[in-house]
């Protein structure tokens, strides 16, 4: 199965990188761009008996390594 993990700083944690990108977009004339957040996407294959089992494994991977729960939240997608 294919796993896709998106990791972002939690809402409320200042994303200075997102802020800088937002300022740059404003500089290019897109004054309507707001709330820019810069995150990370991690994709990989995962061996599991079912999509639910794969999701359980990947969420555990996020808690242990792929995200830092102190500052980051994550979203998991599992595809066949």
């Amino acid at each position, binding site marked *: 199965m294919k796993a896709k993990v998106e990791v972002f*700083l939690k809402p409320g*944690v*200042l994303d*200075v*990188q997102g802020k*800088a990108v937002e300022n740059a977009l404003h500089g290019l004339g897109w004054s309507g761009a707001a709330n820019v957040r810069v995150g990370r996407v991690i994709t990989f294959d995962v061996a599991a008996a079912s999509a639910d089992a794969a999701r359980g494994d990947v969420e555990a991977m996020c808690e242990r*390594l*792929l995200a*830092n729960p*102190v*500052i980051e939240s994550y979203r998991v997608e599992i595809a066949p």
Partner: protein
Amino acid sequence: MKAAVVVFPGSNCDRDCKTAIERSTGASVDMVWHGESELPSGLDLIVLPGGFAHGDYLRCGAMAALSPVMGAVRAAAARGVAVAGICNGFQVLCEAGMLPGAMLRNAGLKYVCKAVALDVVNAQTRFTAAYGEQRVAVMTVGNGEGAYFADPETLDRLEGDGRIAFRYRDNPNGSARDIAGIVSEDGHVLGVMPHPDRAFEAALGSADGVPLFQSILGRA
């Protein structure tokens, strides 16, 4: 007295730490590769040095926190051996869960490399006792992701329990509550973002790192 400095792939302050400890305290210092699962016996201090362990891949300190040696470091701290993480070492200790909180990218987005003045907030810890009446210490910082972050409850607890060892007088990176260094709940683990290892003789601009090492290992 005996100390060990852990060397991760990408550590670049490991030799500075060794020299700083030797000159400050006269202790013998072993270098320990991150792949070792055991530490030398009879250690009084373990230092996780600055640098860019594992290229800062994923997050600063995330890979290093899973190194074989970290099991031994964790066990030593539980036995009461002093563990000090400096700069990248502080990031590793946070990622390993041995200290609360995490490091964010600096508020100004810049890598900040300069001398900073620190308040010695608590001179009663085993890492700061030798500062005595000295209330200010000057050391250099060198980091891009050094803005300390923790939730407000954790910050309140750190403050209330006297676990903030050092504070920036002029916050260089957006660290929460000007925090530059904290100790663990049991007091055996220190994380400090500025470099005591770069401040061990006047020719370097400051010798204010010396009391930190002397607090743990005694005077030379």
